[in-house]
């Protein structure tokens, strides 16, 4: 029997910003249930790679596939694709003008996926899981960064995504709040969610990732299981990078 088709397939992905070639041909396949962690120096293109997957950045060349849908085909309904891919941002990006409950239920209700009651019930369940059910009627500004990010994760989960993209989810947090967000992500990983995570949290990568990718100069320089990746890095740039971040 043929091997099961990968959930996400990226073929020769390229992205230019003017004359700046940020991605220079990325090829990768992500299986359902895998947790992939992307690391690399700042400006290496790891966030751009992530943002190309749900077309927040439109690739200059190459292909991105989710199942049998080509994400970057102009004929594809990108909104349908995005409903299947959750995204968590560095700066949380909760909707400032809406309560926590409305933040979570806006998309499924407006898109006609659930009625308001269903959406609110599910939102409360998810909020209870992250111990924030009592904040349902609060506005984002009144919450700490760690709370906002946990709620941002809940907002994505409300859509029942098949894959979750995390773009440096803990980089904007005060140190004491990093743990509470990583805990939620670890729990999510244990439940089998497919995850692609850009992060500088090496301990998280070691603990949760199936594969760690080192991206530099717009290509994947090295890919390995976390033990090998951290213990025996082969690429000299990766060795240099790890020597700086693992102290």
């Amino acid at each position, binding site marked *: 029997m043929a091997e099961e088709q990968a959930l996400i397939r990226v073929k020769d992905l390229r992205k230019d910003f003017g004359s700046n070639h940020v991605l220079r041909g990325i090829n990768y396949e992500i299986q359902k249930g895998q947790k992939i962690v992307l690391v690399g120096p700042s400006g290496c293109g790891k966030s751009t790679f992530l943002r190309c997957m749900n077309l927040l950045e439109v690739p200059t060349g190459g292909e991105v596939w989710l199942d049998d849908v080509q994400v970057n085909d102009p004929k594809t309904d990108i909104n349908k694709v995005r409903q299947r891919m959750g995204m968590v941002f560095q700066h949380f990006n909760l909707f400032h*003008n809406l309560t926590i409950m409305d933040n979570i239920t806006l998309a499924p209700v407006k*898109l006609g996926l659930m009625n308001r009651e269903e959406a609110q019930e599910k939102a409360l369940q998810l909020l209870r899981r992250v111990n924030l059910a009592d904040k349902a009627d609060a506005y984002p500004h009144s919450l700490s960064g760690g709370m906002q990010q946990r709620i941002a994760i809940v907002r994505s989960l409300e859509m029942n995504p098949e894959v979750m993209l995390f773009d440096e989810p803990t980089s904007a947090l005060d140190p004491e709040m990093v743990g509470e967000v990583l805990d939620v992500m670890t729990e999510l990983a244990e439940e089998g969610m497919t995850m692609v995570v850009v992060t500088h949290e090496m301990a998280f990568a070691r603990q949760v990732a199936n594969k760690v990718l080192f991206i530099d100069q717009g290509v994947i320089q090295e890919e390995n299981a976390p033990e090998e990746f951290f213990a025996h890095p082969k690429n000299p740039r990766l060795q240099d990078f790890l020597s700086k971040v693992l102290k």
Partner: protein
Amino acid sequence: MDSLSSQFYKAFVKNNRWMLYIKGLGSTLEVTLFAALLGLVLGTLACLFNMKRGRSGKRTVGSAIAYVYIDVIRGTPTMIQLLIMWNVIMAASKNKILVASLAFGINSGAYVAEIIRGGIQSVDPGQMEAGRSLGLTRIQTLKNVVLPQAFKNCFPSLMNEVITLLKETSIAGAVGLAELTHASDMVSSATYQYMMPLLGAAVMYFAVVKLMSFLFGILENKLKESDMR
């Protein structure tokens, strides 16, 4: 030369002339209200189209139309626009309130479009990205997330535009609309005296502007309450 009290008498009391100012003020407020509403709707639409780009990053047809509208209206005098509306486009209409409301509304819309553009640009782009990443369309995200924040951010400028609009309607006398300035003109020509009628009109404009500023201030504070920082 008449004494001040005699001037006052002629300007406001004799022949119930005060009624002219009140009726004039009524027309002024009517035109301001209609024009402000039309301007808000037109301006919002023009702004959204003006900021829209096709997949290739180029302007769409709608966007080009919005750009030309904003550009032409802001680049020509309001008086000319009013005269064109009265003598050319709506030459068949005798309804001066309607013609003036249209002319001033279309004029105001171009300025409102630029005010709202500023408001939208002051909203963190991450808000739009978050909405789009959930599968919401651009329009859905604008309507539910970006525009409410943009309106709040540019509320003081929008209200300033309404106040400007109120005062700008004073040129509508050029097409014979009996608004407040026109009323003071009528009295001046009847009495051959200018100071009292003009002073009277100025005081009434000023009083209305102060009242509007006061009400807008209350509204602005109400909007801030939902910030809950």
